[in-house]
């Protein structure tokens, strides 16, 4: 077996541990403290934000326009509408602005 294969295998095991690990730790406790529960409820917004925020550092007018439209559509539409609207604005604007 090549080194590459072992890297992939070890990477896969490490990744699976992160995906199952949080549950294994939490499930050891019979009751979940309200503060821990509050923390868990904050997870989606907290993590997903970190995948967007640093992108703002090198976002130009095109990217900002796409994000603003995405946010506006979110007030009314569902996830699909949001995504398509944002992507459409981005791709259209890039044809002209570059």
């Amino acid at each position: 077996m090549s080194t590459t294969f072992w890297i992939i295998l070890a990477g896969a095991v490490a990744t699976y541990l992160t995906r199952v690990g949080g549950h294994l730790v939490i499930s050891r406790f019979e009751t979940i403290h309200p503060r821990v529960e509050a923390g868990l409820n904050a997870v989606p917004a907290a993590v997903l934000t970190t995948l967007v925020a640093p992108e703002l550092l090198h976002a130009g007018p095109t990217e900002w326009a796409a994000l603003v439209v995405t946010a506006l559509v979110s007030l009314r539409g569902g996830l699909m509408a949001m995504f398509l609207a944002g992507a459409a604005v981005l791709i259209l604007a890039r044809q002209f602005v570059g």
Partner: protein
Amino acid sequence: MVAEAISEGRAGGDFWAGVRLSMPVVVASAPFALLFGTIAVDNGFSVLEAFLMSAMIYGGASQMVGIELFGQHVAPWLVVLSIFAVNFRHVLYSAGIGRRIAHWPVLQQAVGYFILTDPQYAIAEARAESGRPVGFVWYLGLGLPVYVFWVIESGLGAVFGKLIPNTHALGIDFLLPIYFLGLVLGFRKRPLWAPVVAASAAASIIAYRTVGSPWHVSIGAVAGVLLAVILPPHHSGVGKRP
């Protein structure tokens, strides 16, 4: 018999309801799968290895980082550690979604955790929050198309190399941020949403500038979660439940 047929029909409906929700994810991740395959071969992976990496790790950002370091001939253990670091955020997803799927049979849970990606978590969590059950069939309908397309497209990218002519004009580099912003906004009715988002955004940007990628993800996430933990429970709406 009748009850069985009904429950089967409902299970089928659940599956397709999940598939429908998976479509934006399939669209948004396709360019990245192709790009990953291309870069993987560029950096010395064989087509089979690129395919295997997507099939076994199934985490886009971590695969990109792994490939990049591999191409720079970094020590193997460091490549693995970096993959672990990029994927570390899943620990939080795992703890969160575990509350929703703990009643599944163990084998189903094992599969469920394997396909626990960012959108998978966010969409399942949103469903749980709206009071609907997160069943295995629905969850699989949501996750399976994303997985299958991800693996196949990684292979295609590896085989056809520079398949994507002008990634910038197609906005490919920015499709995921748009998608993730949509997911963040979908949670805006949660208690503490605005302060958590603000804390995570600030911390991740500062960490991105100082410590660097990929640590900004974990640092930013921890900042937001800690804020929710530290603020008194009556702000977070937790203690009110019967």
